[in-house]
């Protein structure tokens, strides 16, 4: 049973998820005594590949293709498919990132493989891979197995933490895929970065502001706290719907699902829909005037008080640590 890791890169550097998925999949490979390889697709990316060895990958197949500087659903599907055939792969691990979530179902239909999406836990029982994944917005979990011959798992970012690495380097093998015109039926013509800010799904710390901040100008103190912590700014649905903050900052249902190490919810009441998007955060801090706000029910630490006083004080206190 050969395992393939889809190691995602953008702009010639690996995403953190590439390391998380490599490490998690190599643990499974060890338990199953399976061979494990990784695949990276890009324009000119051979030089970044060896570092995957630090995370348990022995061999990385790289595809250098000038037309694939950006992602293409159709071309990437075709390439993974070719690797699966050539290497006789039976299990594929991808990140549950925007790229991985786009690619996985296309591979599923092509390879007749079941997909366990957005897994938060993996284990091996009786030689089978058992995946755990959240359902109903994190209000439930399913333990499941994939019964098809080929199997696909996508792993939620930030959940599979990396505790140990080695200094080993992976060998790199270049692969020239057969690509026809139809493989470029869908292409990315441009990538628009949203300013220089961090994305909530990739951030290790998130500071989220809610409606209790009263006006968009008051987000300045959220931004300052976030900057001091090297954190991303998040927003509740209410403030996004009010037009105070852009939709790409929204956490929760109809927004993004996040699991940072630290989630600071400021003046966020904690509607069920909000908690759906952040309940798997490792530590949750709530700052709210209302002691009965539901957010306190899932918070590890809380201060019942006025955010307008507490947030600037937190920023100052954190500066002292540095």
């Amino acid at each position: 049973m050969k395992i393939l890791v889809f190691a995602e890169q953008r702009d010639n550097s690996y995403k953190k998820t590439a390391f998380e998925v490599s490490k998690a999949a190599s643990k499974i490979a060890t338990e199953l005594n399976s061979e494990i390889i990784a695949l990276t697709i890009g324009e000119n990316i051979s030089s970044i590949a060896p570092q995957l060895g630090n995370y348990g990958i022995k061999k990385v197949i790289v595809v250098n293709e000038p037309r694939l500087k950006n992602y293409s659903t159709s071309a990437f599907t075709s390439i993974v498919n070719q690797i699966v055939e050539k290497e006789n792969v039976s299990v594929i691990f991808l990140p549950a990132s925007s790229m991985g979530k786009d690619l996985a179902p296309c591979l599923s239909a092509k390879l007749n493989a079941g997909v366990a999406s957005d897994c938060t836990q993996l284990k091996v029982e009786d030689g089978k891979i058992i995946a755990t994944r959240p359902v109903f917005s994190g209000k439930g979990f399913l333990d499941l197995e994939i019964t098809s011959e080929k199997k696909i798992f996508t792993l939620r970012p930030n959940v599979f933490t990396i505790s140990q690495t080695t200094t080993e380097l992976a060998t790199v093998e270049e692969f020239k895929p057969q690509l026809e015109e139809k493989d470029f039926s869908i292409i990315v013509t441009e990538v628009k970065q949203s300013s220089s800010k961090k994305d909530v799904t990739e951030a290790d710390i998130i500071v989220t502001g809610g409606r209790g901040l009263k006006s968009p100008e008051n987000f300045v103190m959220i931004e300052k706290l976030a900057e001091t912590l090297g954190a991303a700014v998040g927003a509740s649905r209410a403030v996004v719907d009010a037009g105070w903050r852009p939709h790409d900052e929204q956490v929760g249902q109809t927004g993004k699902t996040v699991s940072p190490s630290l989630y600071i919810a400021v003046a966020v009441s904690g509607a069920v829909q909000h908690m759906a998007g952040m309940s798997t955060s490792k530590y949750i801090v709530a700052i709210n005037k209302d002691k009965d706000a539901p957010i306190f029910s899932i918070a590890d630490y809380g201060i019942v008080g006025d955010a307008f006083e507490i947030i600037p004080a937190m920023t100052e206190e954190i500066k002292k640590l540095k």
Partner: protein
Amino acid sequence: MKILVCVNHVPDTTTKVNVASDNISLDVNGVNFMLNPYDDFAIEEALKTKEKFGGEVVVVSLGGDSHKETLRKSLAMGCDRAVLLKDSSSRDSFSIAFAISEFAKSYSPEIIFIGKQSIDYDNSQMCGLIATFLGWQSVSVVVKFAIEGNSVIAEREIEGGHEIVSAKLPAVIAAQKGLNEPRYPSLKGIMESKRKPIEEINPEQCANKINVLRMRKPAAKQKGKIVGTDISAVPELIKLLHEEAKVI
């Protein structure tokens, strides 16, 4: 233009999740169901596309009789007719997508709209599965959409930005919040929806690829610590985050 929109009937967002006695599924007692929120955006985009290019919008859902409620709402919003792929059995994403794509082959639409994910099982797989089964293009998590000539020009959300995507038609488009402002059903729409047909079809069968072993609720979280009730608690909070949680 023949336009197909796929919808799902899902538990209301405020649902309290309890596990049914089979230990693998949701206990639906006392659960209210509604149109999947992302499908609202898909329906709106389908209707806007029809307004621009003419044609008809057919709405399809796979499930039991209860799905008629959601199909009725879709009709009230303005879809022309509805199809229920009637099947109450427990199907995984692969199996549902296969049945929908088989139906799509018989209806032969030029474009399909769908919500980017269903808020029950949150798999986000339908768009890519249906498109691949049909040999079409798929564009997921779409926040801007236009048809130019024989292509779709769309903007999709990615981490820290957006991708501008050009995809050849036919395509399946998965709608994300922000794509549009879904309309509310008008009174006239609601009245008319009662006369519009809901056709029932037996869907194609396809074996599941996923076997659910158990469903469980998340472990109850230990009650958190209220560090204080004013600004004087800040140093203690930061100390806890630094020394106890070790996250800053």
